[in-house]
């Protein structure tokens, strides 16, 4: 609407009934734009982020594929087709076959199962440890908090790959120890976020007010922590998933992760190196799978971060 300004004559000629005090006062407190809930806003903002939505769709499709395809496919991850060894992509084998004639597509699907399982499980465990450790440290405060944070400082001052490699060597190469290794230090980020949020809340006026009113502090913290700290916690957890997938692929690539004949994306890529010159497709498809997944999760993470805290969007 543009601003209406009248010239002097028109203004003087305005009818009397325009000058009566007291019209619908009820609108005085009207809120001009519709107000929405926080989570509704978050979803609206996330939905507008095209890359994040694409990432989400890709991950959902990939999850469904890696669950369903191995159940209905005629091939298994270790079954050989001796008629077609080192074959290129074809209708029969969409991603070709490897040196032993194993269908590369189904092996990539099994790899997806491993990668996604590790990603989600590791993220969930890290989330739990992080929230508990950080919550406890912040809640107890004082000396306990200092010792707990010192431990975290020491753990995080060294590259996590060092621990991961050592743990893999002790517990052997299997999925359990990969997850264990990944959970050794990855929860630290979440723990720090939760701790500072708990510290902040503990001293905030509304928790103090609640305490004076006789409410249980622990109960108050849980009640207020969830809505207040959920944003940063979700974001740090969302970025844990691609981190875990990357670490697993990396370990398998080094030959200390998932062991043959089971296939993971990292070990598939590793196995393709010696024959890279002759059969590049053996390297290409697992690598594409890794990249697509990493991109998708990073897009989702970015989208979540922007959606949960629009101030961070730069």
């Amino acid at each position, binding site marked *: 609407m543009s601003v209406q300004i009248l010239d002097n004559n028109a203004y003087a000629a305005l009818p009397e009934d325009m000058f*009566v005090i007291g*019209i619908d006062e009820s609108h*005085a*407190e009207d809120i*001009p734009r519709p107000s929405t809930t926080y989570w509704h806003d978050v979803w609206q903002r996330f939905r507008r982020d095209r890359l994040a939505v694409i990432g989400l769709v890709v991950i959902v499709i990939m999850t469904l594929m890696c669950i369903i395809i191995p159940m209905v496919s005629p091939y298994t991850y270790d079954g050989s087709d001796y008629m077609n060894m080192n074959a290129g992509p074809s209708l029969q084998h969409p991603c070709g076959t490897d040196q032993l004639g194993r269908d590369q597509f189904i092996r990539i699907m099994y790899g997806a199962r491993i990668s996604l399982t590790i990603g989600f499980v590791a993220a969930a465990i890290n989330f739990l440890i992080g929230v508990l450790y950080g919550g406890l440290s912040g809640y107890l405060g004082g000396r306990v908090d200092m010792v707990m944070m010192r431990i975290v400082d020491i753990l995080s001052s060294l590259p996590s790959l060092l621990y991961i490699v050592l743990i893999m060597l002790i517990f052997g190469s299997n999925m359990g120890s990969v997850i264990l290794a990944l959970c050794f230090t990855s929860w630290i980020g979440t723990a720090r976020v939760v701790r500072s949020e708990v510290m902040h809340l503990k001293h905030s006026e509304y928790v103090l007010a609640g305490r004076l009113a006789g409410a249980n502090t622990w109960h108050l913290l849980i009640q207020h922590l969830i809505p207040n700290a959920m944003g940063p916690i979700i974001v740090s957890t969302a970025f844990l998933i691609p981190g875990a997938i990357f670490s697993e692929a990396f370990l398998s690539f080094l030959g200390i992760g998932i062991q043959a004949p089971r296939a993971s994306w990292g070990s598939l890529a590793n196995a393709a190196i010696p024959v890279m010159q002759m059969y590049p497709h053996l390297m290409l498809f697992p690598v594409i799978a890794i990249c697509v997944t990493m991109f998708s999760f990073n897009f989702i993470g970015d989208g979540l971060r922007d959606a949960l805290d629009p101030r961070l969007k730069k």
Partner: protein
Amino acid sequence: MNLLEVKNLNTSFHIGVGTVQAVRGISFHVAQGESLGIVGESGSGKSVTMLSVTGLLPYNAEISSDSITFDGREISGLSKKEMRKLHGSEIGMIFQDPMTSLNPLFTVENQLTEPLKIHRHMDKASAREKALALLRQVDIPNPEARLKQYPHELSGGLRQRVMIAIAIACAPKLIIADEPTTALDVTIQAQILELLQGLKRDSRASIIMITHDMGVIASMCSRILVMYGGTICEQGDVREIFYGARHPYTWGLLNSIPKVHQKRGEKLVPIHGTPPDMLQPPAGCPFAPRCRYCMPVCRAYMPPETALSETHRVACHLMHPKAPKVTRED
């Protein structure tokens, strides 16, 4: 002669969801040596007005005006480079929050001597001398030690004094103080006000004081602009505003100041409702939705300005001959 004269200033910000019309066609002037107060609540456009005049708004702002003259010169079309020659030398600025307005990574000396080096081309030694003199002028004890310190080592009051020293470093013709006392403790507020009053007495500079605090205005300014919703709703000299205000919004502002002789049980009167959404400003008077004297015309048309004296002007439909006569109740 008028030091600053602004005609028909419009400022809007382009943000994701639309355009915020922060300032809508305002005109005003500041005379030589005069101190003008601009008062209004947050979001009324008072700070944006001054930042538009000085060209210090972020990149997503769009400014248009018929003319802005400063010291007899047209400055509305000046390039950034030419505006910079005015900043810090002819126009000194003091901002609201001294905690964040000083760069945390540089010493007081570095930040205080910067305008001297830029505009007066002083060398390090003479800039330092001048900086010491400035710190003394703003009543900072032990100035030698202060020069070496970083902002985080100073209290809020001291930081605001440093900000004032920076603003007056090159003896500007115009000092713009944007809520200079709002972020400070009450006792410190009084000291800073006293310092500004002293500066006003001792220099010939004009001062524009932006604030939402009528008390600050009363103690500092000779003339007052009352802003609401990006427009000027009333202006006049201190007496005219404090004793003869005609705009219901100004009445509201005056009624919300605690009085020394407040009677027991007498309550401060708040202005109900919230400021208008400047993304979709109302077609008529911006104050209409909150005004207890609102008439149908107020919703439909922007009120024209009515001159009540040489200095006193009010933009309100209640001034129309056909409108009922109402007076301030307190």
